[in-house]
């Protein structure tokens, strides 16, 4: 199979675009595509300071690398969930990327804040670890943006993440979440703007970009994601994609079109107040995070380590 651009031996086939590309042309194609998404949806401007949520996985590290390549000012934020070996390896990978890009990496230690890892705390609270993890991540990442003056939080959510979540919401008719997905979530009082530059890029493309750029990412799964429904939905969608290329992107593009119409109908939203402890938007007197800290916290509310790579 030949590269559609230069005619050399191709390295990746992209049936959803009826194309095949060599390594160099794929990298250029992928970067142009993400750049196009950034421009089309107004995700980032030259004036923005972005913080990239990095987990050590292929998507977030590729995103950090790519934003840097496109010339955006982007540092990283990592949350150490205290999952022993997994968290340790993840931190090493994120620091490697910080070194490679000569960018700052902020990190928040779950174990330091709560004297226990996410699994132990979730067990005490009788909540699934993933649900607790989501609450903590949303708060801490936003807090890093507001504390350190970053205008945008960028995450590595890709087409497969979004399509599988959408499928899950539809299968269970979770209407409260159904129309809330998007490429961008604009800033609100106390909340930084959130963007997903890989929204229209498949997980396979993101992985290929990581491999071709020698990005050293953590290959192992988070131990708590094993058996997650998301993985099942992704697998089902990929089986469909194998026989009917471009189904996933048509699914999401169709969704975005409909979500825009749904959004313009003016959803009624309950007015949010502010957390009495930290000022974060909250429906109750305290936000979920501060309630957690009040009950289980063991130190200062939020403390970040700041890793600054040495000059090249």
């Amino acid at each position, binding site marked *: 199979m030949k590269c559609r651009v230069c005619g050399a031996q191709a390295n990746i086939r992209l049936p959803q675009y009826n194309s095949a590309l060599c390594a160099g042309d794929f990298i250029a194609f992928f970067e142009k595509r993400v750049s196009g998404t950034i421009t089309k949806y107004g995700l980032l401007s030259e004036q923005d300071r972005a913080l990239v949520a990095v987990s050590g996985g292929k998507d977030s590290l590729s995103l950090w690398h790519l934003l840097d390549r496109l010339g955006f000012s982007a540092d990283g934020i990592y949350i150490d969930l205290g999952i022993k070996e997994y968290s340790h390896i993840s931190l090493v990978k994120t620091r490697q990327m910080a070194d490679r890009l000569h960018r700052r990496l902020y990190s928040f230690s779950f174990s330091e804040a709560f004297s226990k890892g996410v699994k132990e705390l979730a067990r005490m609270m009788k909540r699934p670890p993933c649900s607790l993890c989501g609450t903590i991540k949303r708060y801490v990442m936003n807090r890093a943006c507001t504390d350190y003056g970053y205008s945008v939080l960028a995450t590595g959510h890709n087409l497969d993440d979004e399509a599988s979540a959408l499928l899950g919401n539809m299968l269970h008719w979770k209407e409260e979440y159904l129309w809330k997905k998007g490429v961008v979530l604009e800033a609100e009082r106390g909340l930084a703007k959130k963007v997903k530059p890989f929204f229209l890029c498949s*997980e*396979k493309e993101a992985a*290929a970009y990581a491999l071709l750029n020698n990005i050293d990412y953590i290959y192992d*799964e988070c131990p708590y994601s094993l058996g*997650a429904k998301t993985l099942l939905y992704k*697998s089902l969608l990929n089986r469909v994609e*194998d026989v009917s290329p471009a189904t996933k992107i048509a699914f999401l593009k169709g969704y975005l079109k409909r979500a825009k119409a749904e959004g313009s109908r003016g959803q009624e939203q309950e007015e949010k107040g502010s957390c009495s402890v930290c000022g974060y938007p909250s429906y109750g007197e305290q936000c979920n995070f501060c309630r957690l800290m009040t009950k289980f916290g063991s130190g200062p509310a939020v403390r970040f380590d700041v890793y600054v790579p040495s000059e090249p």
Partner: protein
Amino acid sequence: MCYEFPMTVEWEGKIHEIGKRVTVARLLDMFSLSKEAHLVTSNGTLATEDLMLERDDRVRIVRVISGG
């Protein structure tokens, strides 16, 4: 003779030996894996599905799906 230099395939931390030439697409079929959810490298280079893998190639199947 054809088994003298079997192709080695690394998949999920295990090494498998394949005694014949196969294409990337056929290899994924042999492991019942989705083409959309996996990448294959041959001697460290990303390979398209039509590429013929030779017996002494070092092949690695990379799972691309992650997350909970």
